[in-house]
């Protein structure tokens, strides 16, 4: 077996392992043959271990043969004249660390969750969605075409939204899960629109065609400045939705309604970085337009400042951690906009690992505090928030209000986007009902309920 064959086999196994995990858990669930807790937990753990081993082996082979950019066509889903849909994977200096990180953190979370969720109602549901998330992350990380990226992107979105609504018997989780889904759909639409415009420009959806030839991070965009600006803005919008950048930051604390393991792996470490990963992937196009790069820097810094401010007034640990996470994501995005390549990548990897640890320790925070206080023999000092130290008078009151209301971002989105949309189409709905009543000679079916949902 030569190096190419070995790389192909390893790449195939990296995709096959999470796919098999999803297939196994889904089919067993659908057939009403839900495996026991121990079996489910072990299946997930072993799948992650095998995936991690395959990705590490792939990295070693790539280093051994001095290959920085391995593009593998796993197969064609559809081939007809003038059209093909290929499952193409790309393993380079960007995707390999992300794939390894995904398997590493998902494996850790799988081991943690099998104990944390012991005898929890919905244990199996959690792991089915978790497997779906893993598959989505791997597909998105190793995607070689924008269609493959979109497939992974969608799987991550669906599993995230359903896991936010995991405790579905309370009203808040489903409501928040739906909000997350709406933002993700906007993000998905922006990504697909970028693909549509890209197809229109280049005739292909491969990243290679968009970024020009050359391994990451040396690729150069073949698009003109204007084309890069149009596609780039859509990609930034997609990344903003996925990574909860301003103005979409409102969904991140809402996502904390889900169980702690899913919060840790989704919003602390992996999926919240997916937007930044996308921007890193298309960095060549970002740098081909100074306006676009500037937009990314401003967006990143705004998000970072916003998250720092809002995070400093949070009173529960998961919300505080989510905003702390967002502040770092904002910095990573700003670094990407400034033209750095390896700095944001290393920042991303380090931050993901640290944040996972913090989220997993969050349920035992009080115990940790007691241990610390017992160790030092007194209460932990209260340093006060940044607003106490840096602001005074009316500015402090204003800043507190802004932080407590989370920058009014959700309110603004609701008031200026969602409410007008609903009002306009409810009006159309009423008009249609009247029209139908007129056609039916007054025999109108009464509208159901008068409360909005």
């Amino acid at each position: 077996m030569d190096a190419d064959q070995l790389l192909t086999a390893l790449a195939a196994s990296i995709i096959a392992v999470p796919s098999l995990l999803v297939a196994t858990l889904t089919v067993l669930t659908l057939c009403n043959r839900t495996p026991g807790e121990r079996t489910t937990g072990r299946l997930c753990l072993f799948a992650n271990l095998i995936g991690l081993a395959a990705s590490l082996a792939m990295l070693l082979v790539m280093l051994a043969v001095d290959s920085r950019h391995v593009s593998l066509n796993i197969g064609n889903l559809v081939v007809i004249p003038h059209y093909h849909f290929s499952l193409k994977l790309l393993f380079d200096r960007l995707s390999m660390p992300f794939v390894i990180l995904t398997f590493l953190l998902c494996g850790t979370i799988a081991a943690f969750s099998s104990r944390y969720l012991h005898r929890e109602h919905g244990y199996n549901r959690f792991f089915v969605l978790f497997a779906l998330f893993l598959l989505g992350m791997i597909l998105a990380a190793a995607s070689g075409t924008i269609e493959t990226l979109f497939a992974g992107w969608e799987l991550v979105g669906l599993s995230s939204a359903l896991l936010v609504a995991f405790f579905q018997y309370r009203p808040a989780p489903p409501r928040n899960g739906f909000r997350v889904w709406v933002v993700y759909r906007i993000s998905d639409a922006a990504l697909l629109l970028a693909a549509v415009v890209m197809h229109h420009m280049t005739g292909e959806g491969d990243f290679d065609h968009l970024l020009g030839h050359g391994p990451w991070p040396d690729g150069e965009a073949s698009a003109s400045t204007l084309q890069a600006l149009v596609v780039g803005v859509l990609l930034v919008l997609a990344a903003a939705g996925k990574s909860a950048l301003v103005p979409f930051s409102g969904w991140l604390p809402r996502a904390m309604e889900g169980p702690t393991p899913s919060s840790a792996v989704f919003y602390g470490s992996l999926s919240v970085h997916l937007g930044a990963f996308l921007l890193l992937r298309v960095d060549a196009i970002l740098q081909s337009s100074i306006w676009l790069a500037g937009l990314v820097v401003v967006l990143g810094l705004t998000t970072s400042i916003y998250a720092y401010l809002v995070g400093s007034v949070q009173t529960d640990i998961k919300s505080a951690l989510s905003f702390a996470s967002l502040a770092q994501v904002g910095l990573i995005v700003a670094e990407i906009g400034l033209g750095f390549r390896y700095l944001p990548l290393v920042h991303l990897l380090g931050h993901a690992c640290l944040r996972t640890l913090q989220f997993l320790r969050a349920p035992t925070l009080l115990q940790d505090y007691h241990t610390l206080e017992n160790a030092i023999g007194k209460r932990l000092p209260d340093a006060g928030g940044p607003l106490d130290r840096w602001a005074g008078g009316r500015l402090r009151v204003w800043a507190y209000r802004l932080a407590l209301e989370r920058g009014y971002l959700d309110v603004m989105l609701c008031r200026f986007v969602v409410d007008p949309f609903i009002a306009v189409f409810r009006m159309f709905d009423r008009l249609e009902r009247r029209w139908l009543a007129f056609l039916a000679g007054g025999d109108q079916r009464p509208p159901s309920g008068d409360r909005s949902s």
Partner: protein
Amino acid sequence: MMSLWEIRWLEVAVAFPLVGAILSAFMRDSRRAFPFSITCTALAFTGCLIAWAGVYAVPAPSAPLGLLPSGMTKWHLTLDRFNGPIAVTTSLMYFLIVLVTARTKMQRFSFTWTLLAEAIQLAVFGATEPWVLIGLLTAGTIPPFVTLIRRNESTRAYCLHMGMFITLMISGWSLVEADATLTSAAAVLLFGAVLVRCGTFPVHSWVVDWCERASMGNALLFLVPLNGVYFAVRLVLPIAPDWVLSGIGIASLITALYSAAMSTIQREARRLFAYLFLSHASLVLVGLELHTTIALTGALSMWFSVTLALGGLGLTLRALEARFGRLHLHRYLGLYEQCPALAICFLILGLAVVGFPGTLGFVAGELLVDGAVGSNLAVGVVVVLAGALNGIAVVRAWFLIFTGTRHESSIGMNTTPRERVAAVVLMFLVVGGGLFPQPGIVSRYESARKILHERAQRLAVPEEDETAEQGEILE
């Protein structure tokens, strides 16, 4: 020795429900009519399957044996590669809908009219002669009318729109027959007929009305085969000048986006289903308007996907309604615990409707967008936006129906074995078709080429040059 392929199997398939309808009319007890109807629809499905297999087994069929006399050549019903899978899928939907009819609903669900509707519907797909097709499409509007009468519901909106459809269709085709080249007047009339039957904005309200007034099973069976699109492909597309197709395309784009937006704010599951149907039927029409091979392949693939996925979603709603009555979407109903299998089924089929990755609709949507982008960027943008809104609507409905404070009931509400069979079959087709789409897409591609070839010949316009690349198709 007589070969299997010497029989016109589609006529046999039509005969089963037709005879079944006549016999079941004499059965007063619905519990007797139920197994009888299942048998008839199963036989019709088998007949369609054999007829479809015959299309591939015998390249140039010359089946002399059928139920209609050999002298009535114009009336013979045959399948080709285009309508074969559509007829099979439609007969499967009839079978599954009859199969999962709940016992509590058997008294109200008319097996006789359903079987008659199936016979007409399958004959529509097999008809080759335009006037026969027009006659059958006209006859196909009668069973739904009777359904509304039986339910004591207003028929005015339905009659008004179907009357318009029939009038426009007949008058339009009469003008075409009178003059071989399509005159502007005839084009406008046929254009109008397509818009009305497909429920295109602004003549779409009858679809919503029909979904609210008919039983869910009947509503599904009348809408899901997309007869309006079939009429457009068979009679309008081959002869319509570009401006007619552009008109259909613009109206369809508006409808796709408008209906998708409307589906996100609905407070009743029936209306949500109606708007989802309108949006997707319009997306199929958009593909026809572009009349490029890739876009048409995408449209035909989406048709297949919509029939299965939207039909499956409708079946799931029907099963839920049989347990809990009409579903209102203004509060969280909390039904997950009562029927988890239906929750999974709803989610998978709902996502399949909007073309979620790994389902049949995903590649169809990609093809449609890909075919559209080259010629018209706006079409690609609208298709994407409509897909996003439909996705929001489906998941919103899922959250509202299945999450929330647990619904308590004293009796078991989970799926019956018959429902489980239907769900597994549909999910297998939708997901299997999404993971291995090549055979289905190639079949749709060949049909698209044939349709465009006929159009090019008839209108004497140049065809897309694809002969050099025929070898690329992976069988």
